[in-house]
């Protein structure tokens, strides 16, 4: 299908983008990687009157280690993240997720900001952000603000971003020597969205774990933490953690699998990730 007609504006700066959004509100959509947006437009699931292209804005891309955090500009392409030494060393959980995201041609254009803002419930990066307890920087008409990962994902394709705002930066805690990570995903075919996925981070605590964050994706309308399971795992009981998922998670049926199947798969992933978390990192 061909999209409904729209206008096109290339934003020269974040302020420019914010001003255009203020002017057009819900009639405008931000164009970053376009790998989700343009597919949506092609199917006429959405018909904005204006696309605001933010790809050319300088300063919105790049990966840096700053004050114990890894900061990633919102329009940093997946492929740059995939190839980044900084990510490999200081945000290894994200490095683990990258090969699961789409395919090479998609990763050459798709951006981390786009993925976080679009918030597909089965996407990997929102899960990683939640697992790392990161935050996002947002620019809007009232200036800049920071939103924590725990407060960002609200509902199906719904985030804390308002139609007048633009995501500018993703920030995650840099890996420390005590940091432990785990990532596992089940998808019907390589590169597909997850049928069930788990991104997890923790800190080694003697022979056990603390600060555990288990972020499941593909099992609900948003990525979500299984807090009951986190507590059980902190107490060292993997089987109890798996059993607790029954109350932590209530996956709806979707086109790929039923809720009960997703819940079962979540348990399988938890066992696998728990094993990863308990291993010392190389």
């Amino acid at each position, binding site marked *: *299908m*061909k*999209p*409904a*007609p*729209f*206008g*096109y*504006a290339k934003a020269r700066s974040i302020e420019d983008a914010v001003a255009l959004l203020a002017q057009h509100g819900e009639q405008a959509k931000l*164009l970053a990687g*376009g*790998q989700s947006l*343009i*597919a949506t*437009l*092609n*199917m006429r699931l959405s018909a904005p*009157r*204006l*696309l605001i*292209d933010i*790809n050319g804005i300088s300063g919105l891309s790049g990966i840096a280690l700053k004050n114990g955090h890894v900061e990633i500009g919102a329009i940093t392409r997946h*492929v740059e993240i995939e190839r980044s030494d900084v990510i490999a060393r200081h945000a290894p959980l994200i490095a683990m997720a990258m*090969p699961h995201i*789409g*395919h*090479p*041609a*998609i990763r*050459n*254009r798709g951006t981390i900001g786009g993925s976080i803002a679009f918030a597909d419930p089965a996407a990997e990066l929102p899960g990683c952000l939640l697992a790392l307890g990161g935050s996002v920087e947002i620019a809007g008409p009232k200036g800049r603000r920071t939103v924590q990962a725990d407060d960002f994902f609200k509902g199906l394709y719904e985030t804390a971003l308002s139609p007048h705002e633009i995501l500018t930066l993703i920030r995650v805690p840099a890996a420390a020597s005590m940091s432990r990570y785990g990532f596992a995903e089940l998808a019907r*075919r*390589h*590169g597909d969205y997850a049928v069930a996925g788990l991104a997890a981070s923790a800190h080694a605590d003697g022979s056990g774990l603390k600060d555990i964050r288990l972020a499941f994706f593909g099992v609900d309308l948003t990525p979500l933490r299984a807090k009951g399971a986190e507590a059980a795992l902190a107490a060292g009981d993997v089987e109890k953690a798996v059993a607790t998922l029954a109350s932590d998670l209530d996956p709806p049926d979707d086109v790929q699998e039923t809720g009960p199947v997703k819940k079962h798969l979540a348990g399988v992933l938890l066992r696998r990730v728990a094993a990863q978390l308990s291993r010392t990192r190389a």
Partner: protein
Amino acid sequence: MNEFCDITLTVNGERVSERVEARKSLVDFLREDLTLTGSHVGCEHGVCGACTVRVNGEIVRGCLMLAVQCDGASVETIEGVSDSGEITDLQNAFQTRNALQCGFCTPGMLLTAQDLLSSGHAPSRDEIREHISGNYCRCTGYHAIVDAVEAVAQARKGSRK
């Protein structure tokens, strides 16, 4: 509201200036405005890979980029990459091993294979399958394609020694 934009870009080494609708995809622009029909449209939602082209040296889905986004860019299609001789060994291998039947996925498949091989190392069969995992082929079942790419990878490695 600019529903039409003037763009200037390089396509297969040729400088091109056109006025395009903002909503026109890169692959439709190539096929319709420039009559470069070697890139194909299979799904328009970025899954099948038949529209794969190169923008500024990187493979992309031509159906998920707008022509207007390519203002100032360098775009290469199968026609250009073929005429330059860059993938002659891949094309020959595909032919001798019948790694194509209807040929519709082939331009995208060749560009994706070339993307894999241009990194320089000789990939395993599993790595080849992974790199082409976003290119849908209904005819071959992929086995002959993997054979062809593997053979070319080995030959290029051999000729580099």
